[in-house]
């Protein structure tokens, strides 16, 4: 319909969904099924593709259900002249959300600490001494936030670094677990995260069996911690295999 000249465009905003959202599970309901039908200990199917951005040294795109992330790696590039000489390389990470990534526009700015968390997760895996005096920039963009964003960003970033040819000790795989009442749920979606009582995010190097980053929130007892960590380590091992097969496909495709 053509707008009449001089009239302001009408905007439509959906009315706020019901103020009290019924909880998606009630108490200790063990028969509760997750909204997308997965088992409690089942991760979302992972989709990875490297070489998403042509102008970057390396890049990767990851899609876990509704969480879509793209990461570009630039470098090693000359460090800014203002920075002091350093005989090991520098890693600079930045995680940003698009404004349309979250259900409410602009909510991504709540996650400013993700950049430093990504940095900590990756710096243990990169051989910084192989590129002295230079900087490697990792830029992550979350296109759609569907829960468990930071683990997907970390896994995708390590694939992008591998695609860029940066030397690393091992790939970095990350997984998060949510505690909902008495149940431990792996790879939570956005809805499950908003009801969680506690969460655990674990980043590890699967082949070396070393944890590079570990963050707990909420109250945990020691047996729960053991169980959750074991779950995460198993899941990271499987995720590492998926990531490796993606890299192999990419190289075999380019050789043909």
């Amino acid at each position, binding site marked *: 319909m053509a707008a009449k000249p001089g009239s302001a465009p009408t905007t439509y905003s959906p009315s706020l969904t019901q103020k009290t959202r019924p909880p998606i599970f009630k108490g200790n309901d063990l028969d509760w099924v997750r909204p997308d039908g997965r088992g409690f200990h089942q991760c979302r199917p992972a989709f990875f593709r490297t070489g998403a951005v042509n102008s970057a040294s390396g890049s990767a795109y990851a899609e876990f259900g509704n969480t879509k992330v793209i990461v570009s790696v630039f470098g090693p590039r000359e460090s800014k002249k203002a920075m002091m000489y350093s005989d090991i390389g520098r890693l600079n990470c930045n995680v940003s959300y698009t404004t349309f990534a979250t259900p409410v526009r602009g909510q991504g700015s709540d996650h400013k600490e993700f950049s430093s968390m990504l940095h900590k997760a990756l710096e243990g895996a990169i051989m910084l001494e192989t590129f002295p005096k230079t900087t490697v920039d990792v830029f992550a963009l979350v296109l759609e936030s569907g829960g468990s964003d930071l683990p997907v960003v970390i896994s995708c970033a390590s694939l992008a670094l591998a695609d860029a040819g940066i030397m690393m000790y091992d790939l970095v795989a990350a997984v998060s677990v949510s505690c909902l009442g008495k149940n431990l749920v792996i790879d939570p979606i956005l809805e499950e995260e908003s009801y969680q009582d506690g969460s655990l995010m674990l980043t590890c*190097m699967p082949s070396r*069996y070393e944890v590079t980053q570990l963050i707990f929130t909420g109250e945990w007892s020691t047996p729960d*911690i053991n169980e959750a960590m074991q779950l995460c380590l198993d899941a990271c091992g499987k995720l590492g295999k998926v990531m490796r097969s993606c890299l192999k496909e990419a190289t075999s495709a380019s050789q043909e």
Partner: protein
Amino acid sequence: MVGLSVGEKHFIQGGIAQDLRSDGRKRLTYRPIYVETGVIPQAHGSARIRLGATDVIASVKAELGKPSALQPDKGKIAIYVDCSPTAAPMFEGRGGEELSTELSVALQRCLLGSGIDPSSLVIVEGKVCWDLYIDGLVISSDGNLLDALGAAIKAALSNTGIPKVNVASETSGDEQPEVNISDEEFLQFDTSGIPVIVTLTKVGRHYIVDATSEEESQISSAISISINRKGHICGLTKRGGAGLDPSIILDMISVAKHVSEQLINKLDSEIAAAEANEEES
């Protein structure tokens, strides 16, 4: 940040391996803690903690606000940390922002998860609640900022008196109820459930507690664990870049639990002594 020579690094690592640190402490001993409460008269609660040369102040201010639409029966709590340039010249302007954000997020994770109950802050459900602003200020930094800030916030909260509020007679619909803030009566927080934060730093093959900034420059990795009185973990953050074997992490958790018992008792007695001092003066 001090630059250390290779000889100094070996000295620190060797000493730690033999359970004797540069200032004579054992690996799992804290520096003496000094607590003063009520240092900021303008705030509803405040405390200053000195841990060796680390000096931090925490202040709690409560303001009336509206609860969020998603959680109408809970008040709001926000924790911010500011690293002042008096601690280190590199904190001037935006230099200290990264450290401040990291500390704020770590404190929010540890203390807001299960430490303070937000439903005790609501006055009229859905309309009026208390907004609690907890601010930490780092005046002087000699390592172990997170533990000091956690202890300062715990002390500040036990010093906090939220003014009693009288709600005017029943109002209907969307009208804002009238509230009278009394100047006389105060409600105290119950802080026995608030966790303490213990940072364990791994140097070589051993763990130390309460690292000075010299020791912190040597870390391969560190874990900050927030443990409450019941021995439950309320939050955990791994800091530092190197990878850690999962069994080492579980071992560090059990060591931290053991250390936290002594720390909680020591801190509670210091806070009680400080409050008693404040009432006398």
